[in-house]
């Protein structure tokens, strides 16, 4: 497999999104048209790139996919490399419509949990209690007050062929998912958690360590959902690690009190129990 990313990339030191891009495009190979909407990193791969506005992510991707079909070029894939802003909030409407029409597109979302390209403003992907530039911690504010949007489940509820979550700390799992999704017909989406050393405020060397801690603590579970029903949990440790291991190295959570950490721990444990149950039944009720 060739390296499809630009070397050197235009990202910050220790960028999780650059890692996600490198692993993904290594699997996908050269035969694709990459769609991008403003996100960092924008210039990631050598593929032909079509840029668009945030709101039109899903619709412009639809156009590319249908044009390729009309030309008979089924060997070329229409692939999106979007950030969490283009998936969770601004681009949601067009992507949701594309999912509902079950367009033949592959959406790769690298979730760095805020608008990191413009300086770290809050997004729908920002977890509760995280400090962002638009949620500064002060006497009356404890960071973001709302929980993170459960976007994989929302897209699964469109009953599309394939939805998966992945993490840069588990490259084999990520690459297998991309390989599997590559040749499926219809709408498929892979959400990759990509730690951002600048926005989350931690040492760039710890990018992978932190992503791994997130998965092992159950904050970012790795699973696949096919056709909105069949569910599979890919990473099942015997015992979850405490969330504090994931929260502590990040300065965006440093204001959190013990009660708040316990609250997050409670939510994660409940969610994990639900996921385990779904995995046992091999189905998810949406």
């Amino acid at each position: 497999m060739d390296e499809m990313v630009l070397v050197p990339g235009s990202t910050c030191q220790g960028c999780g999104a650059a890692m996600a891009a490198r692993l993904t495009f290594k699997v996908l190979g050269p035969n694709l048209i990459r769609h991008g909407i403003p996100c960092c990193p924008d210039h990631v791969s050598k593929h032909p790139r079509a840029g668009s506005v945030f709101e039109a992510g899903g619709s412009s991707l639809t156009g590319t996919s249908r044009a390729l079909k009309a030309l008979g070029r089924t060997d070329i894939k229409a692939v999106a490399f979007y950030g969490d802003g283009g998936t969770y909030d601004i681009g949601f409407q067009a992507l949701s419509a594309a999912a509902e029409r079950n367009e033949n597109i592959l959406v790769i979302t690298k979730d760095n949990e805020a608008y990191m390209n413009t300086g770290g403003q809050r997004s729908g992907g920002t977890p509760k209690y995280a400090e962002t530039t638009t949620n500064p911690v002060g006497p009356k504010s404890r960071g973001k007050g709302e929980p993170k949007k459960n976007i994989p489940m929302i897209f699964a509820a469109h009953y599309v062929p394939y939805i998966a979550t992945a993490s840069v700390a588990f490259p084999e799992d990520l690459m297998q998912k991309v390989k599997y999704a590559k040749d499926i017909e219809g709408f498929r989406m892979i959400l990759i958690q990509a730690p951002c050393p600048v926005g989350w405020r931690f040492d760039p060397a710890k990018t992978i360590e932190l992503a791994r801690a997130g998965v092992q603590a159950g904050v970012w579970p790795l699973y696949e959902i096919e056709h909105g029903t069949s569910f599979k949990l890919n990473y099942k440790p015997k015992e979850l690690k405490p969330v504090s291991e994931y929260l502590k190295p990040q300065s965006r959570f440093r204001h959190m009190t013990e009660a708040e950490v316990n609250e997050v721990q409670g939510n994660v444990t409940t969610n994990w129990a639900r996921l385990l149950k779904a995995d046992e039944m091999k189905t998810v009720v949406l």
Partner: protein
Amino acid sequence: MHGRGGQGAVTASRIIATAAYEEGKYSQAIPMYGTERRGAPLTAYVRIDDVRVRERELVHTPGISLCFDPLLSLQQAVANDLLPNGQVLLNAPFAPDKSELAGNINIATVDATSIALETLGRPITNTAMLGAFAKATGVVKLESIEKAIKKYFPGRLGDMNIAAVRKSYEKVSPWVPAKNKVAPKMQVDLNVGGYGTLKDVSSWRVFYPVVNEEKCIGCKTCWIFCPEAALEWKANNKPAMVDRACKGCGVCANECPVKAIEMKRVEI
């Protein structure tokens, strides 16, 4: 002011402007807008005057140039466009008469990276340059810099930064006129605030990975996790750094299962 993303050049510009304001002067701090990435070169500007400043644009011909990064300090671009007899304060481990910068300028140096690593534990050089700035240029007093720092960094962080300021206030070298008066024609563009693709990021590093080949077991973990594809595989099944691509993030050293990679500070 020339720095790199993450070194705090923008914060430093604000601190200087605030310090001047504390002394009853009129001041402005202007960051250059662009893609501010950690590690990429960037500029920020400060304008200080005794009368009200009505100008609102970037400073194109500054009187003083500050450079926060030791590798940027080697580039002629940080000394260009200065007023005659302009002052260039560099973050560099060498004496000012060793600098190759050219023009009708005076040069002073301070080893701010070492000071920052000693006092803050991280190579964030902005406050370690500010003490040197106060001493060398005399534009603002040390006390007003400290006052401004307390405003931006309350608590323990402020005390640490003030320690860095005091240390650099003592350590800065005197002004020395530049050896060469004519700048070389071939110059590297700093690509400040630039979009697009880069060709060489070797100057972004503060630390770089060194592989201990005896310890290395050839598992390719570092190669898989490198965000920049900056490790290539040699014939003897050991990794080697691609010089133009490595940004020195340290992920490889952190992930190596046998700790065969060590991050070493770049020497100038």
